[in-house]
């Protein structure tokens, strides 16, 4: 959840809280692109009796920008309907669930997938009544969850568009040490270098392994795989990395009705009016750690085309200013740079415009109309999947990885940490020499750049819908993990 509970308002509305967006050329079918948007963060596997589900009153969308103006050209909309078979019982299921249509599954959820072409206004229903899988409960309730998950992958072909889609619970795929990083910037592998704010007896003081906070958690995933030509401006496949239709911008939004009125004695609120955006996510960790508290809620309600007003958060991020203070003596070059007039054009390019040609040999993912700064995940569709991926993506020499789109195993927390620490500053300022630590700092959650499973804590599929089978409530049980120092 590179963006989970990232703003005060949305942290109180988990059903509409986007957690991650991924976009990559599908390694198993390089003529297609896979788009994933996840919602409902930090799900405990044993979260009954009302297990997690998408909101029937939320409009979920995955947007594609083809022109760089920060507005969607194509949007895929997901709208859900939940039915209760037997409202007299409190049970989510009244017996084993062995198929998506079993009557024992008391609270089924289905959805309609719609494609919107904004230029023409045309809408195409790609599928309706598509069934979600149930949550993974346990050995008795969901004895063969693999089969249920597989049955929830739906192929569609309508109006000249085709692909496959999945919407439902999966294992959380983002790995990060939340407990440490939000404890005033502790990085466990480097905690001995933390200034500790003068506190004594903190128990910190030695190199420690990172802890993947999401190891035992689930998330709800919207996954879509479509032919590349169905998302490009040209309607064809880009001929080269530098082709004018090679790059698309991707982000997700969740919207609620304009008016939600609670009436005494009425079980559900009355919701009316047009949809209003309440959440959005493009690049990982932007609203999470770059946007200030005073702007986070507003940011969530605005489209990427409005992001120029937030430019200072990217050109002089607070976290980059903090690093030399939190870790004295570790980032001397960054400290000296910060003391001048910092202008992180590298971060602006990575997150708001894309990297132009000439910065990284043989690569570009620039998609920005003149004067537009827009937080979008920019994917160059002409870059093929890597034969030997690096979880450090572009900074690790792998152009198929973040910030060229984002794959599920990309260590985006470490990548962005290193970028903030100055590792990418030389791309735009040849006079700047990055601190050695900028290329070494990490959350300590992988065994190196070729570790695509976060030390075995992540279980991704090699094919669609990519994120692993959700953890079972019965199997996981209570989380007991106490770190002693």
């Amino acid at each position: 959840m590179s963006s989970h509970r990232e703003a005060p308002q949305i942290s109180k509305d988990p059903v509409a809280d986007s957690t991650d967006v991924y976009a990559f050329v599908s390694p198993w079918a390089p003529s297609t692109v896979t788009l994933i948007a996840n919602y409902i963060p930090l799900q405990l596997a044993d979260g009954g009796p009302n297990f997690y589900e998408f909101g029937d009153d939320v409009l979920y969308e995955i947007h594609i920008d083809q022109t760089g103006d920060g507005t969607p050209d194509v949007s895929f909309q997901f709208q859900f309907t939940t039915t209760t078979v037997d409202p007299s019982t409190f049970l989510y299921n009244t017996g084993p669930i062995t198929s998506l249509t079993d009557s024992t599954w008391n609270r089924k959820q289905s959805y309609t997938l719609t494609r919107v072409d904004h230029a023409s206004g045309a809408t195409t229903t790609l599928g309706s009544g598509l069934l979600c899988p149930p949550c993974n409960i346990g050995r008795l309730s969901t004895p063969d969850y693999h089969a249920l998950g597989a049955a929830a992958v739906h192929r569609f072909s309508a109006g000249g568009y085709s692909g496959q889609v999945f919407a439902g619970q999966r294992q959380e795929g983002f790995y990060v040490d939340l407990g440490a990083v939000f404890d005033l910037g502790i990085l466990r592998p480097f905690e001995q270098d933390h200034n500790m704010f003068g506190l004594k007896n903190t128990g910190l003081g030695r190199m420690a392994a990172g802890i993947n906070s999401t190891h035992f958690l689930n998330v709800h995933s919207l996954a879509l795989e479509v032919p590349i030509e169905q998302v490009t401006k040209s309607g064809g496949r880009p001929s080269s990395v530098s082709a004018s239709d090679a790059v698309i911008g991707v982000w997700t939004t969740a919207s609620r009705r304009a008016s939600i009125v609670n009436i005494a004695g009425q079980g559900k609120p009355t919701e009316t009016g047009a949809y209003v955006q309440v959440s959005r996510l493009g690049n990982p960790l932007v609203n999470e750690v770059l946007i200030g508290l005073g702007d986070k809620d507003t940011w969530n309600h605005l489209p990427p085309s409005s992001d120029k007003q937030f430019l200072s958060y990217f050109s002089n991020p607070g976290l980059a200013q903090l690093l030399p203070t939190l870790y004295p003596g570790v980032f001397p070059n960054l400290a000296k740079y910060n003391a001048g007039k910092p202008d992180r054009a590298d971060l602006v390019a990575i997150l708001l415009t894309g990297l132009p040609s000439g910065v990284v040999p043989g690569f570009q993912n620039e998609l920005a109309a003149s004067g537009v700064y827009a937080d979008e995940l920019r994917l160059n569709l002409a870059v093929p999947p890597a034969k030997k991926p690096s979880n450090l993506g572009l900074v690790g020499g792998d152009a198929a990885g973040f910030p060229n789109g984002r794959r599920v195993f990309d260590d985006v927390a470490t990548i962005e940490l290193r970028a903030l620490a100055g590792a990418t500053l030389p791309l735009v300022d040849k006079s700047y020499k990055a601190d050695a630590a900028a290329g070494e700092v990490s959350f300590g959650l992988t065994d190196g750049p070729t570790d695509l499973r976060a030390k075995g804590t992540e279980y991704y599929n090699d094919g669609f819908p990519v994120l692993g089978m959700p953890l079972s409530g019965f199997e996981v049980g209570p989380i007991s993990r106490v770190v002693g120092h």
Partner: protein
Amino acid sequence: MSRRRFLRTGSVTMAAAAVVGAVPGLPSLLGEAESEAPGSGAVAGAASPALSDAAGLEGPVTAHVSDLSGQVSLFVQDRTIVVRDPALVARLLAAAR
């Protein structure tokens, strides 16, 4: 409600929760109200609709007034309709006292 008190306390939202029938020509009435005659907000020469004319409008209507410009947003079904009707706004604010 004084202007100062309104601006201090923020917007006013009212919900008409009863199901009412359709108001014949309601959209056109609303459209005309957006370019209303000064003062009353009513379309010159048009009679005020009666509640009985609203048969057929299915579902609740929520009205939201956020300032004293005379603008009111109406949330009905899946639509948001913005109307400029100072007289309507005045009546809503009077009812909210």
